[in-house]
């Protein structure tokens, strides 16, 4: 019981900033800066939320974020899972698997700042700037190292015997992956997908530089625009932040069960 209280307190303390975000989005400006801080006693207002909806760009930003996040996650899984399987289960000349694996991982080491200008120039020449689809492909490249390494870990947990038995039965590697292994690492796959979606949904720098108009702009860029030259529109920004958080929250709550189960290294033991 003592431990439950401690746990609840720890979690509650960690959630204070989120609670504060929520209250700021419902407070008038005078209340936002009140000394001493008003935790509960304030008159709520919907004016900030109305402003967010009235700005007109919310819909397209939401839609673009959705396309970029889900599209890139799907593509990354489609390309990354077979790669992970190949590196883990198929035969390679000595050391190849590790080298390729490390090269894939090393792409995550490239700081975004570093690749953004050449990417910008490359996309400009291909006349693919300001397109939500190019942004999706860029995000796919972000997710791939993560997907390959996470899935490699999960697939490594599956006992070799299963793979070998299926192969003795004459099944092709494709079949083995699709019908036998994937169901076994289903939760791990879900966890990886969730993390990738969250990362893409919240990404800021590339969306800022590679998009130029509302046709491709995503939510984080719109939120950052609330920081103006003179003031930070705390109310509107908080409201937009809360709205941006909701879809991800729903998604995470629904898949929460799989998240933990999926991340269990060693959960799948014969």
């Amino acid at each position, binding site marked *: 019981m003592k*431990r439950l209280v401690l*746990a*609840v307190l*720890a*979690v509650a303390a*960690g*959630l204070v*900033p*989120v609670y*504060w*975000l929520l209250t700021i989005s419902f407070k008038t400006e005078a209340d936002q800066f009140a*000394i*001493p*801080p008003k935790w509960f006693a304030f008159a709520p207002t919907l004016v900030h939320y109305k402003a967010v909806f009235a700005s007109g760009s919310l819909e397209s930003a939401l839609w673009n974020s959705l396309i970029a996040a889900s599209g890139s996650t799907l593509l990354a899984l*489609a*390309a*990354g899972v*077979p*790669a992970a399987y*190949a*590196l883990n289960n*198929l*035969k390679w000349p000595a050391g190849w698997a590790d080298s390729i694996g*490390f090269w894939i991982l090393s*792409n995550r*080491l*490239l*700081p*975004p*700042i*570093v*690749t953004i200008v050449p*990417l910008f120039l490359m996309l400009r020449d291909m006349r693919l700037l300001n397109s939500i689809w190019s942004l999706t492909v*860029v995000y796919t*490249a972000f997710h*791939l*190292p993560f997907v390959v390494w996470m899935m490699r870990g999960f697939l490594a947990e599956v006992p070799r015997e299963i793979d070998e038995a299926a192969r003795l039965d004459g099944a092709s*590697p494709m079949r083995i992956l699709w019908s036998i292994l994937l169901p076994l690492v289903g939760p791990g796959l879900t966890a990886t997908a969730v993390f990738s979606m*969250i990362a893409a949904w*919240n990404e*800021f*720098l590339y969306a800022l530089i590679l998009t130029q108009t509302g046709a491709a702009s995503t939510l*984080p860029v719109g939120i*950052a625009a609330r920081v103006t030259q003179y003031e930070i529109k*705390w109310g509107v920004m*908080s409201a*937009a*932040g809360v709205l*941006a*958080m909701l879809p*991800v929250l729903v998604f*995470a709550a629904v898949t*929460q*069960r799989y*998240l933990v189960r999926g*991340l*269990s*290294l*060693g*959960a799948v033991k014969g």
Partner: protein
Amino acid sequence: MKRFQIPRGVWWVAPAVGILALMSLYPLFFLVFTGFHSISGEWTIRNFTRMASDRMLGEAFLHTAVFTVAALVLELVCGLLLAILIDSLRRGRAVLRTALLLPMLLPPVVAAVIWRLIYNPQFGLLNGTIRALGFNPSHLTWTSGEGGALASVILVDVWEWTPFVFLLISAALQGLPQESLEAARVDGASRWRIFFDIELPLLRPVLALAAMLRGMDLIRIFDQVFILTQGGPGFATETISLYIYRTAFRFFDFGYASAMSLLLLVIATMLARGLVRQLRPIAAREAA
């Protein structure tokens, strides 16, 4: 002599490698090319020699190193403690876990802004609460004061990403072989003994994985610092990514920015190699 056969796996990794190559090989060429060119277009190594005498670059690296190590250690420790605590509960685990996810779900931009408000020395929640409790916080300037600024930024990152580490470790705890733990308990070993001698060694792979994933992101930290402090006050929270961004985009000096990026890449690669070596023996052992 055996005829060289293309390993079957090549076709399987081709899409992933293809996309990655598209996004990274060209930028790498670009970096090397611009790094060795001056603004007027001639070949030069001046961008690289300039790094040696650039005081600000050294400071930025120092800040990044401090930030990375401190944030990483704190995230690992807090994540571990939280995982053990919540894992030992009988009820309420699911609710607590979902609640803990929230900081991670917020767009970093929003998290940084809300913390900026919380840290405000006069109107923010932190100092306001301290004042309400009867203490005088006027020397606590958080992100506005040089001394505490880096620590304040570290705190924000720890707040935001401990949930990630917590999830990884929590999952690993669930997968620990119960038999050895039971055996130890039956033998009469104390809770701490069990933890240090049995559980911790078994958690090593997941700790290394968390360290690697978080470490790589921490070295490249940009969003939060940009919004929270823009690298200030003074130069106190300027990280290497911020410095490169400024050089590339505000000063439009791509040559120098490329040179610095290459240096950062080399350092990060060396560190990653070290960490990956930690992971490999374990994975190989478990796959056997």
